[in-house]
């Protein structure tokens, strides 16, 4: 019999039940989905790295390594496998596309996975194993021939297979480009045999190593074996590994804030709803008790409501979670463009299941405690209807302005104070809605202003010309710079406190590159010393006025430079002017020229060119990913707002049903009563938004710091974000108010005002 009651009661309170289920499902869904995102990246990247032998260390020498040297490194205790490796940027004939031609002597290290076509053949003299993404974007298929040019070498290759490689997990030509752009940049593996055919000899600038050793120990061991200090790039310093793990870290941060907010709201809504339900059913609880039902049986009955909500909510929630996970981690979506790996199997961290179980236990506990408080005492006690707290004068009534307030204001004011839990929950829902919308839009604003600052303000060139270090002398660089009215740059890798750091030395003549200080102002560099970015300053604990000492790899030269100031940088480097570098004794030998020209003639001294358009285009994809997230969050926020406010609105409506019936009998029109109800919502919404905006700014600051530290972004919020988030919150509140107040018309005055015992 009680089972029938269970179902009928659920039908009676369907608004509450449905909203509780939606809240639980949304909470669990967002929680599961977000945690799935970072965990899937971690797991799938890991297994891809394992499968294709992503190197832990790369020993780098521009002059190349011999077979003996590679063997010697392989003999180091703690080194698993080694391979001589080469990656050079070659230009596709009759175009500007760049393909990184890659050779790995030992395919078990820094190898690739074939997605279609033939397996790798180390003896092949013309086979190309081309990036499947690049092939796809450019309409290339197996069997096609590709003609490539590297420096003064031209060669043809036949596409033997389409592949993915862990070394190119995030396939960008350099760190200034945030997102891969497969239409213009890809990679292709060739066999050592083909390399020999092209170059006449095997030439490898890297030894890639698989090893669990600590970087410092490894560097020491290499120095012992090879008798020289080499630049060593560990896994953590590669774009592929660090960006993928960064993405996973960002996911963790996101998963730690917003989904928890959803879960918290779900649980709190459960508290108010279960209390409300058992309070309304108090006389029924008393009736059951007086009929002779044991407390245990009655408790079980009411607890089963919580169980039902938990079960249905959890089932839906896990479904939403997988859907969300699949949507974000979709291999053909934005994330799939960013991270290029073959397997996108979704993985869920174990603790997610534990949290889901805990939420269910919590729901049951809430149900148990709610009915327990109604069951207290004798059957006669339980039979007495639940009486809300006696009305007392509220604080505001001590002031004279109180008497001047209209009846509606007083009514709403006292109602808000009387039902504190409901008011608190309403505020919580409104604040939640404002915070999520504001944060989502704020992140977008921050990115927009960042793009504007760097790509529209700091980058004024059209083309970046990369010179060939071997054939281009400083005089050649001067000549090319003059020809294209360019600015010059020298980049070099140096060792600073044992770490590899990039140095950028600029000779700015035409203002094609500008620098940004900590306050987002464009500044000119002085010749007084070097400029560091915030990350370098943090990493090496140095500040303005300190001196840093570094030495270029492969030399014993040491240079000392004073830090003259701070600039923001995308690439985490030390920046200085040509004059400052020459003062410190560093010879200026430029390898990059920036120009406003777009038409660059073929020249053996030029390795390749990159256009600003390439870089901007990649940023658009990055922004698309953000826009998807922003929309998902806004939709979730609106659902959250509507569900929470509707649930509470219906609760308030039920609680004040009799009062509204009285007003109606006295002669208040439906519209006027509706306006009173909506008025309360509007006031709470006002308070909620006023509290929500500063909360959102706090969360945003944290998010920007946690999510975008690698780009040194500053929080920027556009006025439209304030307007949209407040307007949307008010819109949601008004919509729910209208939905609830529409019910006014259904108030049965006669029924409602019949006598009560």
């Amino acid at each position, binding site marked *: 019999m009680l089972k029938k009651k269970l179902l009928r009661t659920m039908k009676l309170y369907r608004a509450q039940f449905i909203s509780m289920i939606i809240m639980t499902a949304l909470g669990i869904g967002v929680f599961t989905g977000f945690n799935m995102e970072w965990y899937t990246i971690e797991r799938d990247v890991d297994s891809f790295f394992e499968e294709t032998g992503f190197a832990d260390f790369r020993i780098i020498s521009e002059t190349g390594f011999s077979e003996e040297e590679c063997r010697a490194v392989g003999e180091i205790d703690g080194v698993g496998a080694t391979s001589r490796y080469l990656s050079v940027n070659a230009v596709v004939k009759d175009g500007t596309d760049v393909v990184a031609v890659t050779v790995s002597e030992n395919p078990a290290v820094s190898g690739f996975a074939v997605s279609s076509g033939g397996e790798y053949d180390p003896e092949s003299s013309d086979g190309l194993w081309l990036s499947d993404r690049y092939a796809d974007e450019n309409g290339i298929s197996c069997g096609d021939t590709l003609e490539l040019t590297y420096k003064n070498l031209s060669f043809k290759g036949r596409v033997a297979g389409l592949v993915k490689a862990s070394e190119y997990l995030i396939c960008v030509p350099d760190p200034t480009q945030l997102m891969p752009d497969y239409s213009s940049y890809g990679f292709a593996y060739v066999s050592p045999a083909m390399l020999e055919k092209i170059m006449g000899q095997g030439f490898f600038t890297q030894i890639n190593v698989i090893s669990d050793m600590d970087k410092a120990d490894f560097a020491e061991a290499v120095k012992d074996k090879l008798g020289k200090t080499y630049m060593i790039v560990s896994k953590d310093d590669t774009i592929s590994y660090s960006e993928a793990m960064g993405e996973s870290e960002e996911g963790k941060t996101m998963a730690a804030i917003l989904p928890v907010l959803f879960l918290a709201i779900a649980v709190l809504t459960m508290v108010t709803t279960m209390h409300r339900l058992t309070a309304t059913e108090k006389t029924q609880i008393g009736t059951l008790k007086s009929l002779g039902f044991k407390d245990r049986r009655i408790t079980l009955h009411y607890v089963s409501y919580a169980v039902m909500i938990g079960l249905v909510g959890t089932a839906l929630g896990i479904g939403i979670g997988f859907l969300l996970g699949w949507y974000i981690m979709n291999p053909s979506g934005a994330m799939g463009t960013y991270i290029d790996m073959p397997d996108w199997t979704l993985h869920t961290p174990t603790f997610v299941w534990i949290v889901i179980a805990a939420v269910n236990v919590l729901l049951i506990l809430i149900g148990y405690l709610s009915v327990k408080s109604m069951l207290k005492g004798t059957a006669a006690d339980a039979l007495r209807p639940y009486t809300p707290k*006696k009305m007392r004068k509220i604080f505001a009534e001590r002031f004279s302005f109180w008497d001047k307030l209209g009846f509606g204001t*007083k009514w709403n004011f006292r*109602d808000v104070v009387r039902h504190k839990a409901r008011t608190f929950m309403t505020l919580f829902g409104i604040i939640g809605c404002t915070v999520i919308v504001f944060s989502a839009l704020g992140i977008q604003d921050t990115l927009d202003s960042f793009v504007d600052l760097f790509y529209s303000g700091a980058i004024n060139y059209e083309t970046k010309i990369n010179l060939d270090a071997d054939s281009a002398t400083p005089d050649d660089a001067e000549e090319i710079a003059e020809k294209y009215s360019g600015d010059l740059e020298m980049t070099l890798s140096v060792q600073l406190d044992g770490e590899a750091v990039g140095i950028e030395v600029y000779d700015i003549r035409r203002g094609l590159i500008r620098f940004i200080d900590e306050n987002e102002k464009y500044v000119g560099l002085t010749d007084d010393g070097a400029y560091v970015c915030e990350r370098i300053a943090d990493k090496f604990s140095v500040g303005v006025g300190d001196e840093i000492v570094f030495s270029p790899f492969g030399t014993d030269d040491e240079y000392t430079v004073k830090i003259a100031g701070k600039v923001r940088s995308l690439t985490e480097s030390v920046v200085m002017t040509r004059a400052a570098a020459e003062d410190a004794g560093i010879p200026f030998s430029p390898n990059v020229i920036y120009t406003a020209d777009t038409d660059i003639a073929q020249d053996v001294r030029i390795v390749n060119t990159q256009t600003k358009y390439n870089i901007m285009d990649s940023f658009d994809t990055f922004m698309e990913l953000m826009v998807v997230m922003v929309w998902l969050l806004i939709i979730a926020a609106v659902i959250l707002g509507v569900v929470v406010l509707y649930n509470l609105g219906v609760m308030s409506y039920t609680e004040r049903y009799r*009062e509204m019936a009285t007003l109606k*009998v006295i*002669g208040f*029109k439906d519209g006027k009563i509706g306006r009173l109800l909506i008025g309360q919502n509007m006031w709470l919404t006002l308070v909620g938004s006023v509290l929500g905006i500063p909360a959102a700014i706090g969360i945003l600051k944290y998010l920007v710091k946690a999510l975008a530290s690698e780009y040194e972004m500053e929080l920027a919020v556009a006025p439209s974000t304030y307007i949209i988030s407040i307007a949307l919150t008010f819109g949601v509140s008004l919509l729910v108010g209208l939905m609830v107040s529409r019910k006014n018309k259904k108030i049965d005055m006669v029924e409602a005002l*019949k*006598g009560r015992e």
Partner: protein
Amino acid sequence: MNIVEFKNVSRTYTVGDHEQKALDGIDLSLEKGKFIVVLGPSGAGKSTLLNLLGGLDSPTEGTITVNGKDISKLSRDELAEYRAGYVGFVFQSYNLIPTLTVRENVELVREIAPDALDTMKMLEAVGLEDHAKKFPSELSGGEQQRVSIARALAKNPEILLCDEPTGALDSETGAVVLNVLISMAKSYGKTVVVVTHNQNIAKIADGVVRVKNGKIKSFETQDSPASVWEVEW
């Protein structure tokens, strides 16, 4: 002069596929300024009569005229206006707003009634001027009912409708409340209709309407009704 005219009024409720006639073609005329009691057993149709007269419900057939105005075909909002301007209600379960003070409960009607009377005067008339700042939950049942009478009269309505006004009170308190009701109605010249199954109340009425099975069984007038204190409660 008749203030209320019921002409062939019927009210049918449909429950499932079953039709139930709560009122079956009744005719009734009430004179202005009189104290009328409607008597009848449970389910006789007396509350339906009161609801139709109060504009809480509309008849399925027939016309109801109040003060020369047909109220049987009004829209929802027009009915609300009618309730605001013409009728005052007193219920068995007082129905005060718990979050408003005594004074505010009475003052409430100023929001909607065009000719509302002075709040404090009404509270004085029911003898509760000292409780003006209390909340309903701080008053006894009889006091709460007197507040609801003050509220009903503060609108300055033509008719005062009371559904078992003493039903929830003990007989002594009931007598006090009835006395307040009658004396106020007389001094303000209001028509009062009381629905009850308490035969004693009939003794103090100017007219007694007996209802049974949805029809009017009798309508007797009493030229010299008893005073509240003469009746054995």
